[in-house]
Every structure is written in C-alpha cells, then in structure tokens.
C-alpha cells in the first residue's frame, strides 16, 4: 500500500522510521491516534539514547575526563539545537525540565514567590490542562492571590473581549494554552501576549500540544515564558523545556536547590550559578536531552511546515468522515485547529468507545483528558479523542470510522 497525502507528503516512507508502528494489535495493524498523549519515537531518537548510554555515559559539567567532556558537549549542543528550534535568542534562556508540568510549576514557584502576593490575579483560560490550573491554585492558596478564567465559546474559542476585561492593574501573570489538548483550538496567542504586554503583564504559554504541530517562534510571539514536553515532540519521556526571558529569569529565585545550580556554597551563604544552570539542580536527564535533540533534528528533517500541512489534511478528512456518521458529535469547532478531534457517540460512554476501538487496533484516548473544568463547561464527563501526528495516514481515519460503526453496532 503506497500512500501519499494530497500534497505529496511521503507518509509511508516516514512510517518506516517508526518501528513501533509496524506491529499488530489484537491481530490488526496498529492505528495510533493518541499522539496528543504521547507521540511515537523515530529510530534516530531511540538510537541517540542508546548511543549515549553505550558510548559516552558520564556526568556532565564536572568531570575532567574524556567521557564527561563528550557528554557535556552533546548535552549543550542539544540545548543550542532545541533553542534554535523555537528561535530562542539565547540558549541560556532555555531550561531543561521534566516536562510541561514541571516547567509551569517552576514558574509558579519561582516567579510566584518573587512577584505574586495577596489579592494579585493570575489569568488562565477555561480550556487549560490540569497542569496549567493546579500549580496556580497552589500558589493562590499560599499567597492569597486569585485565579481568573477566560471563558470560551461553544465552538471552543477563547472570548478575547472577556480576556481584555479580565486584565487589570492587579494581574501579575497570564498563563494560557497555545493549542488545546481536547478541542484542538489554536489560540491567538500572539494577540493575547500583545494585549497583556500593553499593560506590562507577562505571559506564559503552554506549548505542549503546539510544538509538534505548528512552527513556534518565541521571539515572534514575544511571550515571556514558553513550556513544552519532549515526549509529545517525538522525543523521550522525562525531558521538556522552559524558555524564559532573561529579564524575568534573572529576577526569579531558584526552583530547586542542589548540585549544578550553585556557584559557591558555605553554611553561611550560597551563591547561585548563572542561567540556565540556576534552574537545573541535580544531575539532569542527559540521555533524554540528547534524545530530544535528535527528535528536533528528525522533525526538522521531515519539515515542520510540511508536517503541518499533512496534519491539516488529516484533520479535515477526520472531521468530514466523523461528522458524516449519524450519532457522532464533534466537540471543538474552532476555525483554527490542529492535532486532534474530540467526539462523542450517542448513548455510548467514551470508555466503551475506547475499548471497542482498541479491539480494532485503534488507539485513542477516552476520558476527561486532564481538563475536568473544560469537560464541565460542556456538561460532559468524558469524550473520545483521536489525535494525529505526521505519521498518520488518511487510510487510518477510514479504519477509525469503521471501528466507530462497530461501536454503534454493539450498542444498537
């Protein structure tokens, strides 16, 4: 079966790079439509991690021996590479963390401790993942600050006028998602940043679902912080990145204390290391970082724009095919979308949909997607979500549709 997308994207050749996609699940070819939960990894990423452990495993920034120098060089090369990928002006502004969750917690903790006090306000949106809600709630509990929520339309778009009204002299931070993990909405983040900046309010963008799908340029967005996870970007788990502007990072106290983040330590006084090391306490995930560097390499080889065009075709086709199935309802109809389709099958709980699809080899996510307030906004307990990456094919969407027919048959 040779498949090209409408615009000639060589998806079958690309699929060869992902060994996991070759397997059968319950006797059927795997149809992996859960990349928003975690993406699959190309062989080059797997090889990079293995090569690090086989050939150069050593601790970094401290050894004077050959392996340590090599590991340090590769770790820092990965940082420069990933910094360029999001067009960060200076690699010192890119801090390695475990993932988006840790990145947001770092800002909540360090920026929060320095800049947020009782009766200050933090603005998030109604479509946030729990990782961009709970850290702020914890901060509010500790400081007496208040959380303000930008409402959304039924179609799943942020109500920008309402956002404008939320911003005021007590607002200390805006933290919003770039691309929704449930609705697929691409938020007008550049505009949101401009509006906040006009009132001197900094903005954090949660880019977990954005970086695998849309080109991200942090200088163009002009955001103050940008967070994403490596494992959703074809890299290993346990590694992610926080970009932050030096002007803020310099004013923020360290997040965790320990090795690597210090300059000198005595029992009387500790001075901290320079950026980015001030925020990277302890031995980092060296293999993960090198793996993420390889993932970015691979993704750029595929072409971020070409991948986005192919995914757009997948999304359009999936929307058309699912909307045509009687009894299937789509959630999230924003004009600017990427990455996923959330849907409901009349009279069938999403978990039952998930189990039946799995028997067809189709992997989707079913549940609240770690966005319970968003589910509540729509009066739902759960949805089924098919999410895409550039390695998915139009044919796989046909398999999804056939499997949904089976769901309806079982529950007829």
């Amino acid at each position, binding site marked *: 079966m040779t498949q090209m997308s409408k615009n000639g994207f060589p998806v079958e050749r690309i699929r060869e790079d992902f060994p996991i996609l070759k397997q059968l699940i319950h006797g059927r070819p795997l149809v992996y439509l859960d990349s928003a939960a975690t993406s699959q990894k190309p062989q080059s990423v797997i090889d990079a991690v293995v090569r690090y452990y086989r050939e150069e495993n050593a601790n970094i920034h401290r050894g004077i021996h050959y392996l340590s120098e090599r590991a340090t060089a590769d770790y820092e090369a990965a940082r420069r590479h990933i910094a360029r990928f999001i067009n960060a002006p200076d690699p010192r502004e890119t801090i390695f963390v475990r993932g988006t969750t840790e990145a947001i917690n770092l800002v909540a903790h360090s920026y929060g401790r320095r800049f947020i006090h009782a009766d200050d306000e933090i603005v998030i949106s109604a479509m946030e993942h729990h990782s961009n809600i709970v850290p702020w709630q914890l901060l509010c509990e500790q400081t007496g600050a208040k959380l303000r929520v930008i409402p959304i339309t039924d179609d799943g778009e942020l109500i920008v006028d309402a956002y404008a009204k939320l911003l005021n002299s007590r607002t200390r931070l805006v933290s919003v998602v770039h691309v929704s993990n449930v609705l697929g909405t691409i938020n007008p983040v550049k505009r949101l940043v401009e509006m906040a900046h006009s009132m001197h309010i900094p903005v954090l963008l949660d880019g977990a679902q954005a970086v695998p799908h849309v080109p991200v340029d942090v200088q163009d967005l002009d955001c103050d912080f940008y967070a994403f996870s490596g494992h959703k970007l074809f890299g290993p788990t346990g590694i992610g990145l926080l970009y932050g502007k030096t002007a803020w990072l310099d004013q923020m106290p360290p997040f965790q204390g320990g090795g690597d983040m210090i300059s000198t330590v005595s029992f009387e006084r500790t001075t901290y290391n320079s950026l980015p090391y001030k925020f990277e306490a302890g031995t980092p995930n060296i293999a993960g970082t090198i793996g993420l560097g390889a993932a970015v390499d691979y993704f750029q080889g595929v072409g971020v724009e070409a991948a986005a065009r192919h995914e757009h075709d997948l999304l359009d086709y999936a929307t058309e095919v699912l909307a045509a199935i009687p009894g299937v309802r789509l959630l999230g109809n924003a004009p600017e979308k990427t990455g996923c389709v959330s849907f409901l099958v009349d009279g069938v*709980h999403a*978990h039952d949909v998930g189990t039946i699809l799995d028997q067809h080899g189709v992997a989707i996510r079913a549940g609240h997607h770690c966005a319970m307030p968003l589910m509540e906004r729509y009066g739902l*307990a*759960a949805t089924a979500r098919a999410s895409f990456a550039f390695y998915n094919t139009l044919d796989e969407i046909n398999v999804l549709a056939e499997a949904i027919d089976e769901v309806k048959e079982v529950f007829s």
Partner: protein
Amino acid sequence: MSDLRELYQEVILDHNRSPRNFRSLETANRVSEGHNPLCGDEVKVFVELDGNVITDIAFQGHGCAISKASASMMTSGVKGKTTGEAEALFEEVHRMVAGDGDTQPNADLLGRLTALAGVREFPNRVKCATLAWHTMNGALKGQKEVVFNE
C-alpha cells in the same frame, strides 16, 4: 472480536440501557460516593439497612456501560441480603473480573452477575466493574466517600 461480544453481553447492554434502582433513596441510612479520579467515573450508592439486612439499595452517577451495568446488577443482587452476604458476593465478583484465585467463579452464588465475566479479558476495565461495589462496601462501613484507584 469474540472478547468484545463476551464483554458487551446482552445482559450488560440491557442494564446499561435501563439500569435498575437508578435513583436516589430517601430512606437510605447509609450513603457513599465513589470516585475514580483516573477516568472521572462517579457513583453514589444509597443503602437502607435494617439491622444487618439490606432492605433497599439504589445508585446514581455516570460512567461507562460496564460500570453502570455492574452497579445495576449489584443493586438487584444484594437487595434483601445481609451485609455479610453482600460482602461475600463482592469478593466473588472481584475474583471473577480480576481473575484472582485459581478456582472457577461460583456461578450459583453469582447468578446473572456471571455476565461480567468477560471483563477478565480487559484488565483496564476491572475498575469500571468494581467501582460501585467498592462504594457499596464503603457505605456499609459508614464511609461517606470512596476514592478508588485500583
């Protein structure tokens, strides 16, 4: 697909479509709320207890077909039974769906609940089948809330 037919038997689908005792119970003197934080399923179990006899039982909540059918069949299965009998029945159901224990499930004891046997082939659905039971157990023990994450 045979596992699928085994899981979604007609009895299960029937209880999902028309759950029995799916209401609140004003005469209940034991009420517990069960919650599975992983999937968001919620169930509230109302028990009217006279001495150690379950004279009435009902449930409310939302969840998948397996959890709803299991809750429905549970209420039918334990009504009129003693708390000891209800607990023994839960143990048997748990053994059947989780596949623990070497012996075959006791079909005489389980009755129509044997329809849940197909769950055994779907380990990630065991929690769906047992949420209501854990919640009933909590109610019998006087717990108001059962956070369940098996």
